[in-house]
Every structure is written in C-alpha cells, then in structure tokens.
C-alpha cells in the first residue's frame, strides 16, 4: 500500500461506491443483469489491481472503472425510461423511482471520482 498514489485511493472509493450500488440496484423497480455485471466488474478490476499490483493495470484502472461505472449508470435507464415517463406525466409516484435515482447518483459519483483519479498519480514513484 505504501507505494499507492492518491489516485488509487480514489478508485478504491469508487469501488466501494460500486459495491454499495449493487445493493441499491437490487431495490430498483426494473433491473438488468448487465448492470450488475458492470458493477461487479468495477470491483473485480479493483481487486486485481490491488492484489496483482500490475503496473499497466494500475495505470489504466481509473479509465476502466470510469467507463464501467458510467456505462452502468447510462445503461440502467434502458428499462426505466417508461417508469420515469409515468412519474413525469404524474401517472405514478416518485417513490417508484427513488432507489433508481439513488443508484444513478452513486454510479455517477463513482464515475466522477474515477475521472479525478485519472488526473492524479496512481503510484508514488520511488
């Protein structure tokens, strides 16, 4: 851990958000398996980078995680657009999409953390 840069710790936080988001996503009205896969992938690449300590993997970690989290957030709308439309049209109540909103906010927060991480050092050079 000693040689990890601040960027890595931000990806670690993004990974933690992905883990939380998995639980949040389970309560979303309409779910997609592919979104779970994307979130699990975020955690998997983080674990790989952490345990393997591969230089290339460490380098591209924020890019990969940012793509995965951003894709999860955007892709999750695919099956929720109708429901959002119902709420906007006052055909249904907002509580039917609150967990979805929470999921998207968390995923986007993770994405932004990855973006910031990308501009920062991933390792402390000796």
């Amino acid at each position, binding site marked *: 851990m000693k040689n990890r840069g601040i960027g890595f710790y931000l990806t670690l936080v993004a990974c933690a958000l992905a883990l939380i988001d998995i639980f949040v996503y389970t309560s979303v009205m309409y779910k997609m398996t592919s979104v779970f896969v994307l979130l699990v992938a975020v955690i998997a690449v983080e674990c790989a980078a952490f345990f393997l300590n591969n230089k290339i993997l460490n380098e591209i970690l924020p890019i990969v995680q940012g793509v995965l989290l951003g894709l999860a957030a*955007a892709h999750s709308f695919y099956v929720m657009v109708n429901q959002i439309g119902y709420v906007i049209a006052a055909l249904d109540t907002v509580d039917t999409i609150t967990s979805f909103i929470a999921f998207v906010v968390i995923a986007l927060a993770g994405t932004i953390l990855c973006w910031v991480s990308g501009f920062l050092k991933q390792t402390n050079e000796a």
Partner: protein
Amino acid sequence: MSKRKNVWRGVTGVSASLLAMLCAGLNIANANVGFINARLGTTNNIVVDTGDGSTDTIYYKSEFGTLAEMVKAKQALAEEISSEGAVLFKNNGALPLNISSEKVTLWGLNSHFPTLGGMIGSSTGFNAEAGQPAYGIEEAFVERGFSLNQTMIDLYSSDMVLGYARRGFGQTGHGLSPAFTATYVNQSEYPVGEIPASLYTDDILSSADDTAAIVVISRDSSEAADYYPTEKNTTEGDSYERPLALSDYERDMIALAKEHSTKVIVMINADNALEIEELKNDSDIDAILWAGEPGLYGFLGVADVVSGAVNPSGHITDTYAANSTSAPAMANFGMYEYTNSSNQGGNLTETNKADWYLVENEGIYVGYKYYETRYEDVILGQGNADSSVGATQGSNWVYEDEVTYPFGYGLSYTTFEQKLENVSVSVGGEGTATVSVKNTGSVAGKSVAQLYVQAPYTNGGIEKSAIQLIGFAKTSVLEPGASETVTVSFDPQYMASYDDSGAGAWVLDAGDYYFAVGNGAHEALNNVLALKTGSKDKLVSTTEEDVIDPECAFKWTLSAKDDTTYSENVENQLQFADINTQIPGTVTYSTRSDWTLGWDTVDSLTPTDEMMVGLTNSRYQLTANGDGVSWGVDHGIQLIDLVTIEDGKITGVADFTDPVWDQLLEEITLDEAIQFIEKGGDDIENIDSILLPRAYENDGPLGFTYDQVAGYYVRWTNSDKNRPTYVSEKDEYANWSDNVMPTEPVVAATFNTDLVTRQGELQGEAALWTKETGVIAPGMNLHRTPYNARNHEYYSEDSMMTNIMGVAVTSGMKSKGLQAQPKHLAFNHQETNRSGMSTFLKEQAARENELRGFQGAMSRNTAATVMTAFNRIGTQFVGASEELLINIARNEWGYTGAFVTDMINGADYMNWRDITFAGGGNALTTSAYETSEIGTMAASKSAIAKDTQFQKMMKSNIKYWLYNLAQSNAMNGLSNTMEIKHVSTWWQNTIYAAVALFAVLTVAGCTLYIKELRKEGNE
C-alpha cells in the same frame, strides 16, 4: 513527464466514459425512437412520391377549413351534450331560474373546485398556459349571465378554506388517491372536501339571504382508484357513513342553505351514484339536478338547463339506490387474495401477477336488473323476494326502501304523454315499436321513448331480468301541445337469454313478451305489471310524477321456444370462468327462485392444479412444427393497392377472404411482423414492405389525451406541411388539449344517438387535425357497482345502453376514417388489483351483461380495434383468451377488427406468446418485455421461425390490423407511386456527432497517453 501522462490519462478516462454513456444513450433513444419523434415532431420515415404528384391522396377530408372551426364545433357539441345529459330528478317549480331577477348563491367548496372529469390516462385535461378555457361552475354561470353571490365565492377562494379542499395527485378539486400499479392495501381515506358550518359567518350567511341556493354535492373519478364503503373522511372534523353518502359537513351546508335562501337546488357533480334518498324526501329541497362530470365545457350546458334556455331531457343511466351497498354485487367487491399468493409466500410469484381474484356472485342481476326484478317478485309473491336478506332497512325487502331514482329516470320542465301504439317483432329480423308522444305541458322540450322488454320467466328456468332496456328514440323539440310519433328500432336477438345449462344457446322461450315504455325501468315495469296482472294494486311508484298506464305496455306472444335463430356457431365458451366448475360449491349465485341466495362473500380460495396453469402463464409454448411460412416475398403489392378509391374517397377494401391478403402478408418480413406486434405501444409500427407508414393512436373517451401527448401539432412533421389539416406549432390552438368532452355517463344520459354519432364524427375530425389514426375509446365496461371510481369512463350499468351508445359513437368515428378502439374487453369491473386479477362469473352473466355491451360495435364492425383488459377471465388473461377473442368475438359475432392489449403492466402474464397464440393482437408497449422472464419477441426470433402455427397466428393478427388500417385515415397521403424513405432526424444526427467527437477524443487521448507511458518506460 508523469504530470503530462496523468493529464492524458484523465482526458482519456473522461472521454471514454462519456463515449460509453453516449452509446448507451443512443441505444435507449433508438429503442424509443417513435416516442421521441412523436414529441419532437420528427420522423425517420418520409413518404416520397415517385410519380408526378398529381393524385389527390387525401381520402378523408375535414369538413372544417381551419383548426379553430373544428375546436369550436367540439366545444359547442360538448355544451349541447351536457345540456341534454343533465338529469332533473326533482323539481317543485323552483327550476328554471330567472336569470334577470334571481341572484344565485353557489354553496359548497366543491362548487369552487368541481370535478370536470376523472384523473389519469383517459380523463379530462386542458392547457391554461395556451389560453384554453375551462369552465367550472362559477365560470360557466357567469358566462351565461347569472348573477352570483360574490361574498360566498370569496369565502371559497380564501386561504382560510384552502386546507379543506380536495387535493390529490397535484390537482385541486380531486380527492381520490390513484395507484397506477396494483393497489395492495386498502384505500382507506377519501376527503369529501367541504368546510365546517362554523366558517360561514353571519355576514357570509346574510349575503345568501334572498338568493336561490345551488348546493353542489361532488365526488371524484379516476383511473386506478376505487371507492370503498369502509373509507373514512379525512376532511378535518367531517365524517360520513359511506363515501357515496352525504357527509356531515354537506348536511350542515344544506341546512344553512335552507335557512338563508329563497329556494334550494341541489346539483350533483358525480358519475358514481350517490345516496340521496334524504334529499328526495326533504320537502325543503326544491330541486335536484344531476350534472355528472361534464368535461371542460359542460357546465355551460348545465347552466343553460338551470336558466331554462334548454329544457332538461336527460335520463339517468344508473340506479340511484338508497344505500349504495345494497346490491348483491357489493358482496364481492374489493380485494380477495388466493391462499397461495406471493404476498403470503405461496407458490404464486410476483411475476405471475396472479394473487387476486373476484367472484361475481350476482349473476345477471346487476343494477336495475336486480332492483326491478326483485320488485316484480315481491309484487308477484315469489322467490322469497320480500325476505329481509339484502334489505337495507333490516325488515322485509320493499322497493321504496331500496331505490331512490331508478335507471332511466328524468324529469322535464314540461310534461309528456306517451303511448306504445304498436310493436312488431320479426325473429331473425328487425323489431320496431311505434310510440306516440305529446307535449302536455307549457314548455317546449324533447322526450325520450325508452323501450323495455320482459321475457317470460318460469321458476327454476333460465334467469331473466324482469325488465330490460332494448331500444330508445328521442323526439325533436316539441312545442306545447305538439305531438310526434317516433319509431324505436331494436334487434330481437337482444330479447334472447343465454342458456348455459347445456351446450349453450341463445333462447327465446315460448310465452308472452311484454314491451313497455316509461320514464325509466321502474315505470316501464309497472306498466308491464299493470297489463300482465290487470291491476295497479300493490304497485309502487318512485315519485309523484310516475304514471302507471297499461296502454304503455304491449304483449307479444311467441308460440314455440326458439333456441336456434340466434345460436349459429354458438356454444358454451366461458364455463371455466364459473368458479363452481373449478371448485364445486364455492358460491351460490343470485337467483329469482330464492332471493335469499347469492349474498356470499368468497374471501378464501385455493387454486386447483388446473387453475394454476393459467395463473402461472403456462398455457402455450413455442415448439418446432409445420413447414414454415413465407416472409419477405416480393409480389409487388402495397396495402394501398387493396383499397377501393372512388371520387377521391375510400369506399372499400379487398374482401377479407380474398387471397390477395395472403400475398400482401407474404411481403412482410419476419422482423417487421415481430416489431409490429411487440411494439404496439404509443404508435402503430410502420411496415415498409407494404408501404404502411407509422400511424398513431391515443386515449381516450373524452378526446385525445393531453397528459400523454400534448396538443394538436405534435404528430406533424415538416414533410406533412402540404396536408390540408396540418397544424403548425405556431397555430393559435396548437397546444390546446382535445380531451374536453363530457364523461360517458353524461353522454349516455342524453339518450340521443344522433348527438353521440356526431361526437364520434368530431372525434374523427380531431384525428385529422392531430394526425391520429386510432382513439382508445369508448370505454364499454359496465358499472357493476357504484364503487368503481373509473365508472366515469363507462356509459352505464346496463349492457344495452352501452351497446347502443357504442355503436353510435364508433359509427361516427369510422365515417371519418378514425379507428375506434373500445375498451376494456372484458370484465374490468374494478380498478383495485386489476392487473392479472382472476374474475369469475357465470357465462350467462358474461354474455348478457358485459359482452352484450361490446357486441354491437364489434358485430357491426364499427369498432376497428378492441383493447383488452388487464384482468383475467377465470384464470386466463383476457387478452390471451381464445374462447373470448376467437370463438365468441370472431366466430359468433363476425368481428373483423383487430385487438390490442392495454398497457403491458406485468409483461409475463400479458406476454406476446400467449396473446398471439390465442388470437390477440398487438402488445401495447415499447420496452416492457425487456424486463420480463419471457424476454422480447425479437430475442426469440429463431424459436418463432420454427413454429409454423405461431407464425400463422402472427399473420392472422396482423391481417386484421391491415384490413382496418386500409379503411382508415392512415391511407391519407399514400398512393401506389409512393415509397418510404428512411432518414435520420436532427436529434439522432446530434447524438451521432457527439459519439464521433468523443471517439476521436478518446483515441487521441489514448494515443498521447500511450506515448507518454512509453516515454516514461524509456526513461
């Protein structure tokens, strides 16, 4: 060096993420392309004329030169319908009011916040921001020149009382709490929305002195909501026994009005029958006028009735019972859950949408068929009719305790004398009745000749209502002393009763049939009884105005039983829906042989294994079978080629059995067919192979619904600019709402088929100006009980009233090229847990009540498409019931229209596989199957391609759609020299450009990042 590397990594990360998100967004946008295009006024399909462009391709032309003319015509008709639909229950001469000499005090906070229509989906709507007017009671009365008590209006407009106003779902003036999804908990609260008497100060009360009081009693309507007898009033300090009874605050208000007014007129602003027996019996209440929920402009028409500009001629189309819970149907209304429901942790799953059931124990005895039939049996002393079982007063059942105003009742400012001169019946042919009508009063007005029939009943035989509406006709305006003879035409098949005891047949029993006219079902029945028994003794009148006259009845005798004339292709189809065939002895049905039976509440059911097949959606499976079918074959035919055009108008289409249809269907590709069926939501999908452009359909019974698609202009694109009915975004009326008409109970109360046909025609006109091809209307379910909060979307408790109204309005629509899409076939009798609910009922009840309502428009094929309901019949989803859709609708009735589901709300029980196999039609969704266990139809394409039988059913379903679209306004703008050209819209191009931009940025950033990485490695 490292710093630069980090920058490029950061840039790459940001751009790659945004690229991924944009790609996902593009995918979503393309999946909902029709929806987005409809809202942005764009299109991906442009019809291009490859000919010389000289052909006039507008086959359905508007009768109006401008949108403004059409909008004004609709408003005028809405006013006229509301004035003819207003029902005068009681009048001691207080009405009409003299506008020039009588000042009016409008009483009730709900006079300030009246209900114009229901909420959600198919209800009323308007756009105030666009300058569209809406007329509440105050606005309408001022418009019509009434002088109103401003002090009272100021009270109701003050912040002090605002907290008492009904509020719900964002709209002041509505108090129901609709649940768009299933209601799994009891809706326990309903605020009436009146204020306490203490807020009427002496100053305010004195302002009402010497004025005429109009006291407004109002209740709401909504899709996805019901009333419950056990609800509590949440208006602070107020209470009621039942939500459809008067509340304490309402009674207090009426008492104050009586103290401070020259006369008291109660105006009922509700489509659910209320309990108003106390108002009827109160001699200090001078008049009662039912306005219903009259839509955006309807109170103008009601004001005309109050002023006497229009003489009331409406008749109520529901029974006003003294106690709204007294009919046997109320024994089973609400929420009943299977013992193995998913809620209880049983083996039914949430995906099955099968937790709930409803047993319709009342048999055929819905509405007046119960009250009037039991009345006759009391008079004739049969069937324990006078027992205390079902009696609201606890003692013997007597009619005067039970019914306040019967079905069909309504007064006028004048009096009429009617005589039933003659009745002619040709079994298998037509029936006619001749009725002479004379205005015996002093005011000009219209009169309705309501024709009823009584079929011969024998104890223990087929259940029969003692009286049944079979037809009606309305006179023109008759001056005092003037007479008119009207002819009421009817179809004698509706005199027949359905015998489900054997193989199933429509039966005309031998014996005496009594026809009668009267001011409602009760007076007609009294006329029958007077003729039948030769005595008026013991007969009970509803009001002092009732006349019992045997000359208003007519006896017609059938010498021999006839069970063949109306039984061609008929056999029992719905026996499985009788719960007693599944679980013997579950329920006793209401019966004339013993009125003490039929009151059981079935509050516990455990489905059998056979029932579980339907409840778990396991009735059909895709298999590999047959030799396949042909798709994508080029025969050089387009849909427009099958249309007969004469003098620039569509006059016909190739016969349904013509093999050319098979050739046309072969031109369609399997992908197109799949898309057409499984994407039936919002739009009717285009089929390029046969030159069918994307067409549009929309709710609902009051007009094209505003909350789903706003305004007249939204369907139009720049490529339509040359159409004569094109509406620009800049048009003065472009953003106006079209769903402005009165609700269906008001329409039905007119008893005027000419007006209703005109309503259909003007809806067809609206379709030409909104570029819509289908309207999901009319609502044709029955008012099984007064507690369904969606009754405002349906005409009546009576199937013949529904049948006649349905034919009238759909005929008008069809004449203008608009596809009428009646809903919801069938048995959608409550909103609570409507999705997937098992509805159990007797086949006789199903056929004589609910299905008879649909039968008119479907057998005459004035309905082009029918929307199926959310519920199940028995345990089958109604949209996938072969027995209902094919065996009854097509084989018995000869229906050649299409089917479409209601909004897919439970994608696994409303699945495309079962719908298609069972002869259903399109699925009203764009993406609901994406989240279902069955998945999308497109994803199952390879399995579908192996199932010949399934593909044949797909073709069959699409054929019905095409057969009707070819006769619709969807053909406007088409000729056989045209072709469909695909283009990208500006918004798609924008997304594509953004994707390209971020792809370039990502590649560039990535390249520079790798370059820096290499440099770092070298160093």
